[in-house]
């Protein structure tokens, strides 16, 4: 059995090897460490915000193995070796991440910015699984991300724009392919 720590005079530590934003990282932490604190304090991933700390606001959302999760409700030790974690920092130099960030910036979907990293991660997770979501699907996917600047309409529009850009580029690429194969 994996008994990873035994209560002794010295604090017992847990070790995990994860892929964080595409990079392999080895972390050591004490058993009751929240994933949020570990990623912010030890890894310096400041895009994660602690809004409510009890799973209501979505500001600490990250993508873990293709699912959006809340780091304030996850004990770091619950994630085993090999877990793939994506934070908003990992959305640069990434086509879908770039498109989303551009759509958010150009569409005025960012006001104070506190909710933005969590919203971007939620949107990224959605569009990765479903490149052309309906407005209702976008709403459902982001229902767990609260924005207190009342910016929901622009956020939802930005996600739709980012998805449409993909469709356009996808269609353009397809048209190029057809041209290549047309004598």
């Amino acid at each position, binding site marked *: *059995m*994996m*008994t*990873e*720590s*035994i*209560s*002794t005079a010295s*604090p*017992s530590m*847990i070790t995990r090897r994860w892929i964080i934003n595409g990079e392999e990282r080895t972390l050591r932490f*004490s*058993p*009751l460490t*929240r994933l949020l604190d570990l990623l912010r304090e030890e890894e310096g991933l400041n895009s994660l915000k602690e809004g409510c*700390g*009890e*799973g*209501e606001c*979505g500001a600490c*959302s990250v993508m873990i193995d293709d*699912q*959006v*999760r*809340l780091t*304030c*409700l*996850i*004990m770091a*030790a*619950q994630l*085993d070796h090999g877990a793939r974690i994506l934070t908003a920092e990992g959305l640069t130099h990434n086509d879908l991440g770039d498109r989303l960030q551009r759509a958010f910036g150009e569409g005025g979907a960012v006001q104070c910015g506190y909710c933005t990293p969590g919203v971007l991660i*939620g949107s990224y997770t959605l569009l990765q699984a479903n490149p052309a979501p309906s407005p209702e699907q976008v709403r*459902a*996917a982001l*229902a*767990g*991300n*609260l924005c207190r600047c009342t910016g929901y309409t622009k956020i939802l529009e930005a996600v739709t724009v980012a998805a449409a850009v993909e469709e356009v580029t996808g269609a353009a690429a397809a048209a190029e392919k057809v041209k290549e194969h047309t004598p």
Partner: protein
Amino acid sequence: MSNTSFIAPVTLDQALDELAAPDKPAVLAGGTDLWPQWTSSVEPRPAKVLSLHRLEGLRQLTSQGGWLRIGAACTHTQLVNSREVREFSPALAAAAATIGAIQIQNQGTIGGNLANASPAADLPPPLVAAGARLELASRCGTREVDLDRFFEGYRKIDLRADELIIAVRVPKLPPLGREHFRKVGTRRAQAISKVVGSCRLVLSAKGVFTAAGIAFGSVGPTVIRCTDLEQWLIGRRPDLETAEEAERMTRETLRPIDDLRSSADYRKHVAGRLVFRWVQDQPDPAAP
């Protein structure tokens, strides 16, 4: 620095051994209910945590002989996405989709939802209405309990300290059966219900009820099953007269309280109206 120890067994036997030990660990499934309790000091932080995340067997969904066996550590997302759950109990799939939002559904588990025993929990009403049973395991063996008997009172459950919920078993919805689920809250996501209710009603080919399960949450110290109403419905037709009496009986059965989320009167009224609609919203047995 905490000196909590963290245990993550890979077999059920190892987990049950840990539960039988004198320094019983806190059992951690998804953690969506436990973490806020620990961090806000509602509950003291545990000295020992037993995480279920490596028990593969607890995340399986299997159907056998008209029953669907749902491993206790299946997430709400698994319930939402499972074709079998939708087939065996559409109301359960609908309920799982209303829990928190996607982030919580990806993390929280069915076993955790039941063990936490919140009177406002979303999964107990459809499970109780469907006649679900629980498998509880300990080193002494496994026993089964009816879910409605598992909830004994406010946050009080029939689970010994050395026992673990390992699975929920749900009987398949019969061909002329229909389920309904409704959660009434202030907001569609991230809301705790004012009233949450579900039913499984089964008609005979002659168009009378042969089986009925109706249960509500957020209207009592624990999930409330409308047993008198269920029995009264047997043999009756899904007509207006039946629906009106069913509405009245529902209001009589429930004993909700006034609290910050809603009033007792509103809760009784809404539950009654839901039953009024559910009773009449039935398939036509004569239809092909």
